């Protein structure tokens, strides 16, 4: 897949929840093939505190309109600036970048686990899994009811199980405490979210021998495998999370987790 540097046109910028927004941007030349789990490197203009590009997962893709969606959490100056983009403005991105999630095989039971902006890659992954004829399930964890993000699009693809830390909606506890996660024999679990969540999910999967891939959000400078800043210690040495990842099988990671 050839990488491109392209000015997309913002078609929509919509609030999703407190501090979260979704940008839709379209390509005038049509999108290249994009795999679930891949990301883009966004140039943030007019932001003095933002020197480097910002990596953002591909949240959704609509090939028919040539539109890509990004689900972004305001974390600092760069994402704050992006939250102010208006329809019609240009957004320069380098894409598609990184590897991708391994799609499941026919008949497998598949759970997609996420929280916060970790939901970002799960929509497109869920869509691709559904296209492959499998109905994915989703387990989403949030701090509390008010932090829950709009997940209507996920509901269209499969069942959604919610957990909130304070029980203000859905199950009370972490995603790993969800009965639907604990008690069912999943064949594959895909996870993207805060590191503690990913490590808890990874530990549970390791213990139960479930295939599990996580999408890491390491700090990146280049996003194209040349700066060697985004490395992840793996069983085959330090790998770049921007080219060998961001998706890793937890068996290859050197995480200090007890299986």
């Amino acid at each position: 897949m050839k990488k491109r540097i392209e000015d997309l046109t913002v078609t929509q910028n919509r609030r999703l929840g407190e501090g979260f927004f979704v940008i839709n941007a379209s390509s005038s030349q049509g999108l290249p093939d994009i795999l679930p789990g891949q990301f883009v490197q966004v140039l943030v203009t007019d932001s003095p505190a933002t020197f480097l590009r910002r990596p953002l997962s591909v949240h959704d893709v609509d090939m028919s309109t040539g539109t890509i969606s990004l689900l972004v959490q305001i974390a600092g100056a760069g994402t704050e600036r992006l939250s102010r983009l208006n329809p019609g403005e240009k957004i320069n991105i380098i894409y598609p970048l990184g590897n991708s999630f391994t799609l499941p095989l026919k008949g497998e039971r598949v759970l997609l686990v996420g929280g916060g902006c970790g939901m970002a890659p799960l929509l497109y992954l869920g869509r691709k899994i559904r296209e492959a004829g499998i109905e994915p399930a989703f387990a989403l964890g949030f701090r509390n009811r008010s932090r829950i993000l709009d997940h209507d699009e996920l509901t269209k693809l499969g069942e959604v199980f919610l957990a909130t830390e304070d029980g203000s909606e859905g199950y009370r506890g972490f995603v790993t405490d969800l009965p639907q996660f604990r008690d069912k024999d999943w064949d594959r679990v895909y996870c993207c979210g805060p590191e503690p969540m990913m490590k808890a999910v990874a530990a549970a999967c390791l213990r139960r021998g479930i295939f599990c891939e996580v999408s890491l959000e390491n700090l990146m400078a280049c996003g194209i495998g040349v700066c060697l800043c985004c490395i992840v210690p793996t069983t085959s040495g330090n790998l770049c999370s921007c080219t060998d990842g961001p998706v890793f099988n937890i068996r290859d990671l050197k995480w200090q987790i007890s299986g």
Partner: protein
Amino acid sequence: MADLRIKIGTLEFRNPVMTASGTFGYGSEFDDFFDVSALGGIIVKGTTLESREGNPYPRMAETPAGMLNSVGLQNKGIDYFEKNIYPRIRQYDTHIIVNVNGNTVEDYTELSRRLNALDAIPAIELNISCPNVKKGGMIFGTNPAAAREVIAAVRQAYSRTLIVKLSPNVTDITEFARISEGEGADSVSLINTLVGMAIDVRAMKPRLAAITGGLSGPAIRPVALRMVWQAAKAVSIPVIGMGGIMNADDALEFIMAGATAVQVGTASFIEPLAALDVVKGIDSSLDSRGFASVSDVTGIINR
């Protein structure tokens, strides 16, 4: 089309724009974006005799108009380079230059000897300025006696074009430029990164696992430009300038200060076409002002 050709030692370059070591991989990472043969040269990743894993994560911190890195020379070693990378990149129709690193003088000479045998590598850049390794690196670049020793030894071991990459973390850059010239280097390139640091105030700890790292990007350009200007006046071998070059005007600042050529580093992370844009921009800038060749403006502020 102005005449952009320049010479470093006996080696002729299509144009004065190269990419800086550690910021352009082995060139092939940019194949999707443009034909890298349009560049004057490509300085590939810092290479060592043995394979190295580098420093722990995190290795990067963004800073005002710049970034810190503490990669620490992660690379697969010369054997791997010879077998797996060299055959691939030797196809490029531009000069592929290897950035040479080591812990000891022997490491440097041994590696230089190995590279001397690779006929498609017309030059090496002797890195005596890496701030991110405990042994070797900047220790050679900040100590005149050590610098002299390693440059002399490598000069013995290496017969083609020898560029010495200087550290800016010194009181007097001209001293090291002169030592390089004195020991037979064909050129000096500067600057490598300035040693810097950043702290995450919320977490109350350094942003880099290695605590300190090398500062690059436009933030350091004024310092880089000053040192290049000083070095160019101090020696008669060609000086290759770098540090925060983002566009053709930045590159022309270095050239007008006396640099024969420039390297584009961190800019390629933000704009993969940056080095190519610098080539084009220098060309059109010279054209529009009626200069026939880049040498017409080299060191023009000193005339």
